[in-house]
């Protein structure tokens, strides 16, 4: 690379108002290549495990473990086989069922609590909010054992109720939604009050629609988090018919023996929804992470 090219890479391209002459065009082009090539190489390295995963899931069993990553022919039937070998469809359904319930409870109760913390004036509000603030940093592992004992006492071990309840009321959502609700102008509430609307009306008709981005973000995070969560399900679920996807994968991993191709097909299918959701909703996800950090 000549020194000119290096110089072109190093100076940031500023937006130009004048018509593009040939020199800035060449500069911009070289600049673009300078940043694209390393990024593409790093992205390729990061993607290698995924590439291997997909290719292995399409191999016949005899080709698993060869240095050549490419299957001699694509065996799509591996994916169908997974559903026959383990009850994969049920794990999928259980995961979605549990995650949907937890998300519903979490978002609803968090939104209500956040409304109380941001839109209503009441004595002791800040003290209780401080309590919420403090619990957000608590390590979940400390609470797991007593929670397990509670579930033993309530005879809820090995049930979806016992799985869902402790995960449905976190402080994080209250936080996130309070941040959003604080940005809604109070004059809206005042005028609704003048018109005789009660708190529930205000909550449902004004605050909820206006904090939609926050609600969407919280929904995505809770759903994703629960879909991936495996400590509590691992502890709670004993019978195979209740397994969620992560627990089902662990079980398949311990029983599949050398059938790496089927295992990889199962892994691919369990992360595929995540990839799709991220690509479709990444605007909300990226925003949400950045907001979450500012507040934390």
């Amino acid at each position, binding site marked *: 690379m000549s020194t000119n090219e290096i110089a072109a890479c190093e100076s940031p*391209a500023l937006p130009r108002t004048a018509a593009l002459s040939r020199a800035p065009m060449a500069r911009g082009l070289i600049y673009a290549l300078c940043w694209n090539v390393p990024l593409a190489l790093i992205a390729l390295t990061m993607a290698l495990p995924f590439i291997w995963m997909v290719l292995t899931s399409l191999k016949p069993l005899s080709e698993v473990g060869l240095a050549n990553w490419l299957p001699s022919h694509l065996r799509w039937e591996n994916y169908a086989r997974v559903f026959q070998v383990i009850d994969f469809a049920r794990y999928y359904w259980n995961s979605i069922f549990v995650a949907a319930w937890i998300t519903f409870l979490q978002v609803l109760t968090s939104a209500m609590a956040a409304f109380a913390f941001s839109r209503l004036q009441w004595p002791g509000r800040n003290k209780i909010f401080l309590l919420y603030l403090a619990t957000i940093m608590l*390590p979940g*592992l400390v609470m*797991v054992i007593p929670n397990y004992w509670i579930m033993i006492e309530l005879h809820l071990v090995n049930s979806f109720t016992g799985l869902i309840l402790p995960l449905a009321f976190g402080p994080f959502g209250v936080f996130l939604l309070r941040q959003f609700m604080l940005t809604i102008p109070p004059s809206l509430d005042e005028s609704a009050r003048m018109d005789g609307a009660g708190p529930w009306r205000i909550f449902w008709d004004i605050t909820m629609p206006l904090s939609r981005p926050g609600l969407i973000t919280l929904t995505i995070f809770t759903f994703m988090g629960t879909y991936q969560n495996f*400590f509590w399900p691992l502890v709670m679920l004993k019978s195979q018919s209740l397994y969620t996807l992560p627990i089902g994968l662990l079980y398949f991993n311990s029983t599949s023996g050398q059938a790496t191709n089927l295992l990889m097909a199962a892994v691919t299918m369990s992360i595929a929804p995540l990839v799709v959701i991220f690509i479709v909703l990444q605007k909300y996800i990226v925003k949400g992470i950045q907001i979450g950090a500012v507040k934390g």
Partner: protein
Amino acid sequence: MRRLLRHRGDLLAALAFLSPNLLGLLVFTLFPLGFSMVMAFTNWNLRHQNMFKPNPVRWVGFDNFWRLLQEADFWRFLGNTLFLMIGIPFAIAGSLFLAILLNKESRGGDRRIYPLVISVVAVLVSAMLLGLWGMGASAMELLLGTTAGGILLLGAIGGRAVYRTLLYLPSFTSGVAIFVLWKDLYNPDTGPINLALRPVLRNIQNVVRSIPPFWPRLGLWAAVLLMVAILAGAFRRLGRHWREGDLGTGIFLSATGFMIIPTITAWFWFPKVGAAFLLTLLTAAIVIWQWTPLAGTRDADGRGGSAGGLLLALMTLPALFVVEGLGIVCFNLPAQAANGLHAPSWLASYYWAKPGLMIMSFWIAVGSNNMLLYLAGLSNVPPELYEAADLDGASRLDKFRHVTWPMLAPTTFFICIMSIIGGLQGGWDMAVAMTQGGPAGATTTLSYEIYAQGFQRGAFDKASAVAWIMFVFVLLATLASWKFGNRYVNE
């Protein structure tokens, strides 16, 4: 008066709105928190108290804690937890690097040249593929070439979002599926990592066998000198902060204590006692040299620089360990090569299981939320600062050191604290899915010990005690972040 009345009405409404979440929080978070404290002080073990053995649960005071502290295994598991945390600074540095790369407008800055960029990239990619094809590349090489070309083309068309998605995927999908995937990547016989490593190791072995034995020894001494240089640099900076009064004595001493740890382990790990001796001696000399002019300084109360001082110490420690490790590897290489270099058996090996998990964690963490936070931080740096630096004739490195890095300090501090808190609680997920804490307890962290004791052995007492010890560590890190973080951010 009307205000008060309205507030009374609001109180009822607030209670109604708050109660579902607050009730859940009380029952499933706050009560368990207190109750686990109680459990830690009893002898509650499902093996001793069950329907066949209705022994009463007794209060045993601090017995569980004393017993834990006397257990060699407990200290080993604590050591494992800390060992796995050595990877954190590298992942953070990687995140920052990726964020800086991503922050540049990857398509040339001007919308009008996008078509040009895209077409040039398309031409280059197809030329590369045709070239590969023409040279008779293997199917694997063609596959890699095509993928790289595809990513490049997508990047030229879609810009930053494409790379951000690809880099973020490992952390977004991380969970059992990813751990199961990596367990197969690490398979000692059939895993792709070892399949790729074997030819490389064969080449290294041949090279090492042909070099004179004096070089590896030189490598060891180079490592010792590098450690001394890193230590000296860190102490110089710490000492300067202390002298200027913006670093408390307590922080200075504890940071010093931290950084001497690798010197002490070097004594045990370095194969030649001479090197370890020299290292210890030089460290002592540096510490004395730094401290002499500081004797009798005033300010014992820390000011703004404390967080920076702690960060410096925490970032220096892993660097020292890595240099130390490289020195040992260097020194042992000839003997190893003489016996033949073998690919490590990763998760099945006592020595390679932890590094294996660390490599995977790096892959997950490097493009994670931290990268997105840095990206947000970078876009908040006012461009005028760079323009001013340009006017002063600052180099790229200068701009990074004096503009970017200080402006990102609050982000870095936040990320470090969160990573430390996460690291202290971490490791159970990988252990459950990949290693079951083995081999021989090599990957058992505090959090996995809680799981193993509480749910596999029914020892609620012991598990709760471990959980509370872990909790104290987490609490300390959190308190440190509150104490120093506010100062740091407000600076």
